[in-house]
């Protein structure tokens, strides 16, 4: 199946086959390299990843197996001006997300103003009643956000998805750059690229700036909470804790004592001020959320509400990146910032609405249909690449529970070259920039994580389904 059409925007080559400005310096370097040597460097990179243990775990049949995410050595390059425009849009969107969350858990002005139907909040598991009326320390809900963007033209970036819970991938952004710099040091002296290596320090600063009242008078103790070594993103949890000089804790290391959440150290119990949790809401506190769970810290929510700890991201932020909410994001951005949204949404049909459902059913073969609460590319239909039987099966599910689905056009995701035996070849990509929010401001690392569909023509970039990653450059000049 070949979906790469003439309408596809290639980020390196213009319509006449010329090199776009972003890639010129890189191409000069690339054209002068011995390709056999480059191929060998690619293998070196893979062995470095394996040795350093930059792996992710796969769920399901191969449970416990560690895999490498394929890495492609051709950087994805964005000019400084493109990035400046893009980052303004990202900042606006993230500001709106936080204001939206505060409003949802307080006065719900947006519902009262008739800009968001109450039904999308009702019976939504991502909405946490426990958060109603409570304001997290510093007023920050989403300390760490990943905004998934796709590009369809020179200045057309669209938001595919907001990740406001526990976005992952930032360790790949950092390690991809490290690897590129180790493999091609001279390249970085020829092309000036904005650095990303400050992210862990920025994260530590940002988290510390959100410390609760209980931390007044000392340097805040920050810990990273992981579900453990079998979690698919464990490498990243350990990596970030290590880079921040924070403890990497599991829930079994924690308990509530004297009004604080404490970690068991070799010297006794030590109070934690800020916890960067990489576990879902449901596994935070068995007393509040999931009485049958063996995981979590009983009582942490009480301590949180009493100002004894900061939880990042705040519980209940999932409501903001819910796919049912997504289609309202343009209204949400405008409502809270008073500005027109700088970043577009992908056009979205809400199957809960009768007219939309009819359109979607009539055009299934051209659309991408997603489950409202699904993630990771599972439970979705990509019309153009599906067989008639697959479409028929999906149609049944869709008719049975239309409110469970949204649909979007099949986008012509931009392409970026990858390195193949036969030379450079275009592949579809997306981009996940990482954003830090604290009372001191919003910090966006230049670039982010580029995910690439390695199979020719494929539009699925998820690492769980054969996607790879690239180093993402924002040029310094």
């Amino acid at each position, binding site marked *: 199946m070949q979906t790469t059409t003439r309408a596809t925007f290639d980020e390196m080559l213009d319509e006449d086959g010329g090199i776009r400005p972003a890639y010129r310096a890189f191409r000069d370097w690339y054209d002068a390299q011995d390709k056999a040597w480059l191929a060998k460097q690619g293998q070196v990179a893979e062995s470095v990843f*394996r*040795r*350093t*243990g930059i792996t992710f775990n796969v769920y399901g049949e191969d449970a416990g197996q560690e895999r490498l995410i394929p890495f492609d050595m051709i950087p994805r390059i964005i000019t400084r001006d493109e990035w400046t425009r893009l980052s303004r849009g990202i900042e606006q969107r993230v500001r709106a997300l936080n204001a939206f969350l505060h409003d949802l858990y307080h006065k719900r002005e947006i519902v009262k103003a008739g800009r968001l139907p109450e039904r999308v909040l009702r019976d939504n598991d991502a909405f946490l009643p426990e958060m109603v009326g409570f304001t997290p320390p510093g007023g920050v809900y989403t300390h760490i956000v990943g905004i998934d963007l796709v590009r369809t033209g020179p200045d057309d970036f669209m938001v595919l998805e907001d990740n406001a819970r526990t976005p992952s991938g930032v360790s790949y952004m950092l390690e991809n750059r490290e690897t590129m710099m180790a493999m091609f040091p001279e390249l970085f002296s020829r092309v000036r690229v904005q650095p990303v290596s400050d992210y862990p320090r920025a994260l530590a600063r940002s988290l510390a700036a959100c410390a609760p009242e209980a931390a007044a008078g000392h340097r805040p103790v920050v810990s990273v909470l992981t579900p*453990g*070594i079998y979690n698919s993103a*464990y490498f990243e949890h*350990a990596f970030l*804790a*290590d880079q921040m000089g*924070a*403890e*990497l*804790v*599991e829930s*079994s*290391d924690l*308990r509530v004592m004297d009004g604080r959440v404490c*970690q*068991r*150290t*070799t*010297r*006794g119990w030590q109070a934690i001020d800020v916890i960067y949790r990489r576990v879902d809401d449901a596994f935070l506190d068995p007393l509040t959320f999931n009485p049958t769970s063996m995981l979590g810290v009983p009582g942490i929510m009480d301590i949180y509400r009493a100002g004894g700890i900061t939880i990042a991201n705040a519980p209940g932020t999932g409501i903001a990146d819910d796919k049912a909410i997504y289609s309202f994001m343009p209204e949400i951005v405008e409502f809270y910032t008073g500005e027109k949204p700088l970043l577009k949404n992908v056009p979205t049909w809400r199957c809960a609405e009768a007219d939309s459902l009819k359109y979607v059913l009539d055009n299934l073969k051209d659309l991408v249909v997603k489950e409202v609460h699904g993630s990771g590319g599972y439970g979705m239909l990509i019309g153009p690449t599906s067989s008639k039987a697959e479409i028929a099966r999906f149609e049944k599910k869709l008719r049975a529970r239309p409110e469970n689905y949204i649909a979007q056009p099949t986008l012509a995701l931009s392409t970026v070259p990858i390195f193949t035996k036969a030379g450079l070849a275009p592949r579809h990509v997306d981009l996940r920039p990482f954003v830090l929010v604290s009372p001191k401001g919003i910090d966006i690392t230049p670039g982010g994580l580029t995910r690439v569909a390695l199979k020719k023509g494929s539009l699925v970039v998820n690492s769980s389904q054969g996607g790879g990653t690239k180093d993402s450059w924002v040029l310094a000049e």
Partner: protein
Amino acid sequence: MLGRTAYGIFWMFRYLERAENTARLLEAGFRMALTRGSQSDEEWRSLLTTLGLAAAYDDRFDETTGPLVSNFLLRDRENPASVLAMVEYARTNARMVRTALTREVWEATNEAWMALCEAMARPVRMAQLADLLALVRRQAMLVRGALEGTMLRNEIFNFARVGTAIEAADNTARILDVKYHVLLPSVAWVGSTLDNAQWEMMLRSVAGERVFRWLNAGTLDPRGIANFLICDGRFPRSLAYSYSKLASNMNGLAREHGTTLRSHALLDSAVTRLQAQTIAEVFEFGLHEFLTDFIAANRNLADAIAADYRFIE
């Protein structure tokens, strides 16, 4: 540091030490079998007994041969005490405590695991055994070297060394105990090639045969060997050496924490006992009894350390 991290470090280094010791024992057994010809089955059995794995082995196999025992000890998936399993445990622990390790120590551990998985992907033939065992030793030494060369001398380092020393002491005591009868004076021992070979195997399994010869000008005698493995503070796998390392690292922990705990008291009395005893007294008391007591006290000490430093809740 977290109690769980201390726990992970402690066991990571115990497992590495145990993997290396199993490899050395196997190497000694292999040489013994080579030089003994027809009676070699007995040597393989004795190896299984030393490691406490005879029953587990008999559950799986009807006969005792070199290739079967070697593969069982090295790479058998069903044997949780195989070299490969222990290296894997060590690596899993290292992943768990990744933030407490330098990149060098983690990479050395991860590479050891990768190298051994690859080397043992298929059944090991006897012709490959020597190279494979050398690889196990070399990988263990690389981790030790990375620890020595890159880690801050703080409690993390202390827990790593404490784990190594507890395990080394346990291993040496067990090897001695299984073979203690060949060290006892008996009418049959004088100059017999059988016992010479047994003693040599014992020394070889703690990497001590060359050193011992060098110190003793080539003569082997049972009391000298026992003295060497129990009392000689210069030999890195003797009980005396392990306990002097334990003492210095436990002192490090006491200094850093500003307090001594129950484990320090236990250790003090163990060190005093070890230092006060001459090898003559050990034999008089009974070598087997001495070793049984030592192994139990060593285990108690490990438990006390785990409790004092909150390894688990």
